[in-house]
């Protein structure tokens, strides 16, 4: 376990290499988007719009938590970048399983974001009338269970995409861009499924992407049946992890990394 913690620590401190300014810019972007969304939801509620069964409080809570947990609800491991940069080769020389290394690196990489964005936003949420504490008291345990399943599923999906990237070789950044764009829409992290038209939300929530972001957020705000959502998350974990491991193992034989 210590070796994974050391990997995480290295990853966490590496994020500081570019300086505080380098790190803060991404968080400022998240903050700007959060403010716009909160204002938009408030204006929709003020014009009397039907929020798909969610109360305004639940919607604000959902959006706030989604922003706080951006990195955890949209897992991006160093896998794709490592193929692109050629640094994947060095990971095979280390005395740790490659996928486990990348998971440890990812978790370590969250630390600056947690310190610079997530914790300040938790503290600031009360100032804008969003009570994270009472929601956590009511649904905290189930939420944590769901978040664990979500993170696990996020890793499986990321490694599956990474395996696909091995097949497309030079187009790895292209594949990465498509994946980021599609998962953002299908996961419900940005716009809750309840606000989508034509019953699209009912379809999206059954997809694995929905189990990654929408499920834990809905459980936290108390807007859906936790047992059904957690079972669905568990089922996707059971299905996707073996597929991921088999596909990744198979794609390793095709791995070509030039560096760049």
């Amino acid at each position, binding site marked *: 376990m210590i070796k994974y913690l050391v990997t995480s620590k290295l990853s966490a401190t590496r994020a500081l290499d570019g300086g505080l300014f380098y790190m803060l*810019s991404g968080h400022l972007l998240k903050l*700007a*988007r959060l403010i716009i969304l909160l204002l938009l939801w408030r*204006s929709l509620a003020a014009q009397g719009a039907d929020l798909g069964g969610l109360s305004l409080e639940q919607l604000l809570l959902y959006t706030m938590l989604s922003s706080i947990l951006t990195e955890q609800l949209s897992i991006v491991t160093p896998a794709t970048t490592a193929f692109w940069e050629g640094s994947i080769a060095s990971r095979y020389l280390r005395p740790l399983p490659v996928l486990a290394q990348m998971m440890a690196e990812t978790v370590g990489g969250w630390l600056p974001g947690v310190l610079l964005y997530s914790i300040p936003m938790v503290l600031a949420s009360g100032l804008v009338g969003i009570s994270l504490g009472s929601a956590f008291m009511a649904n905290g345990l189930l939420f944590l269970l769901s978040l664990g399943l979500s993170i696990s599923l996020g890793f499986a999906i990321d490694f599956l995409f990474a395996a696909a990237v091995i097949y497309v070789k030079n187009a790895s950044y*292209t*594949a990465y*861009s498509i994946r980021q*764009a599609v998962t953002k829409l299908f996961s419900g992290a940005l716009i809750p499924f309840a*606000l*989508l038209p034509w019953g699209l939300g009912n379809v999206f929530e059954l997809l694995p992407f929905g189990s990654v972001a929408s499920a834990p957020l809905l459980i936290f705000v108390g807007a859906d049946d936790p047992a059904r959502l957690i079972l669905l998350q568990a089922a996707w974990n059971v299905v996707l992890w073996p597929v991921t491991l088999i596909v990744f193992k198979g794609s390793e034989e095709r791995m070509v990394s030039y560096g760049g």
Partner: protein
Amino acid sequence: MVANIKRIFQLWGIYAKLDLLWFLRDTKYCVAAIVSDIVTNLSALAGVFLLAERFGNIGGMSSDQVLFMLGYACVVDGVILMFFSMNNVAWISRLIGRGQLEHRVTQPVPLWMQLLTEGFIPVSGNSMLLCGLGITWYALSRLATSVGSLWVLSFLFSVGCSVAIILSFSYIFGSIAFYAQVAGEEISTTAIGLFGALKTFPIGGLSLAAKTVLCTIVPVGLAAWFPANVLLGQAPQSLPQALLLIMTITLALAAATMFRKGMKHYATRGSIRYSARGHRR
């Protein structure tokens, strides 16, 4: 003046030829990049479009008007992609922070002309512009807006202003990289990302203070929402109609000043990013 214009078109021709050669010699990856641009862009627009469909009216805009605004935003992104994306011309902090201005100041072409022309990729970078024009045309066909030659000129002028605002914003913040090459290397990505993340939201329902901030200090509203409303004949009453032009001139002047100042600093300090063996630090 005439010689400069002639040279600009010659350079555009050269870069167009290079882009066409990429398409012909590496068609599979070129098509993959084009498809990626389309999917990424449509996904970014889809969220707001679906919200507009669901609620019928957001921030004083009907779903068709929102669609027009999204088409406009797509055209603006398309122009940036086609004219300023190759070699990170729009993401200027990358060039500065990576020490890549050195390559350019030794060329027998003025720096401004290089930056104006070297990002041109009319073959691999036309997808977003075509998508945007298609969405705009479809939205207009569903709206009662009368489209004459004057309206088309207004549209082109507004798109030009929105593009100039985004690029100016990128260059203003990107100039920080002259002073902090490593820390500031990706600052233009964040500056442009701000527009990418926020410009498609119909902000008409927000308070006057919020709208004013989003159309001046953080001018994401000028990249699509404000000009789209003006073009649709429903200019936001609380803001002056000439705001787009005023902000374009202000930001362009600020960007030019910041960049020149940064270049003076660069001329005395240079770049430390490359070692003698050519490796980036």
